[in-house]
């Protein structure tokens, strides 16, 4: 198979995009570590955040991480199969439950952060 196999059809291309978004997830974790390392230096910290390149990377990373999350949550019904008698719990319900859990966890995190403002 040629190394360009994933360019040959849309479903393959979208698969590769989904897989490569993990680089942005990992990359953002690295960025947070760099920010932590700048904590002693208020100017360096601010300069890093104002850096145009860093802003561009953030703007790219956000949709990538969101796509990573959405594709993952949408696939949870394939993995989590719950039977009620002769039928499966609706896949839409399974995915919706995960989106709800994401919302709840996000609210809790925002609440914790807001306590320190």
């Amino acid at each position: 198979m040629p190394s360009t196999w994933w360019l040959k059809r849309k479903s393959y291309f979208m698969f590769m995009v989904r897989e490569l978004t993990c680089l942005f997830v990992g990359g953002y974790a690295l960025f947070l570590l760099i920010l932590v390392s700048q904590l002693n230096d208020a100017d360096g910290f601010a300069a890093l955040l104002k850096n145009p390149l860093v802003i561009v990377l953030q703007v790219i990373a956000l949709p990538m991480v969101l796509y990573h999350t959405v594709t993952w949550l949408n696939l949870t019904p394939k993995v989590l199969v719950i039977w009620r008698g002769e039928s499966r719990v609706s896949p839409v319900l399974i995915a919706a439950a995960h989106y709800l859990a994401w919302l709840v966890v996000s609210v809790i995190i925002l609440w914790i952060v807001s306590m320190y403002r």
Partner: protein
Amino acid sequence: MAASEPTPSDKTVVLEVFRYRPEEEEEPTFQRYEVPYFEDWVVLDALNHIKDEIDGTLSFRWSCRMGVCGSCGMMVNGDPKLTCAAFLRDYHPATIRVEPLNYFPVVRDLVINMEDFLEKMTEVKAWLVPKEEKPVSEGEYRQTPAELAKYKQFSMCINCMLCYSACPVYGQNQSFLGPAAIALAQRYNLDSRDGATEERADVIFSHEGIWECTFVGDCTRVCPKNVDPAGAIQQAKVSATEDWYRSVLVPWGKRNVKST
């Protein structure tokens, strides 16, 4: 066979067909045929027209012509399809390219060698191994509708191998067990009458089994019977992982490869 280039019209469509005659040529070629176009014709009808009226040397497999036997799988414009389910009207007036199923060795023209798949079905024991043998006099192995529902979707597989032709993992590495073999293993694992889940576990919970799958999902996209082999594989991954945790945390416990 035609001396001049065929040109399509409202009443005809051109098929560009993969030819390979090992006794005549080293390399495959493509041959163009102009066939009548009808609203209700499928690619298989066009191929049979070619064989009957234009070129009797064309070789291809087909049988039921209604999407239940799994014989007529081929690549139609690069997409694995049952040719009995690929309507000319979805392509006409564009030329339709017909090639043998991807990733299988070609025997002749559109006929592929499916030995690999047949061996894998044997490897995963794609048949019912009753939990307890009982004589015919004791009656049937009974099952409730709820127990049937658990594996019914995976039992719809017609062994057409379109999923193998869609899977880029199989394309890269033919030692991968593949979507249909694993889905069929799950069909029996989830069958309440079956008792061979542990035997199959050693085959499918392996590097060439479920762990080679990266959940591209194209197998499910091309499956003509909505078997969802990708779903079967991910469910097997959950079972395997649960079993692994049990073996690590409760190693003295009885092995129970829970079928989801």
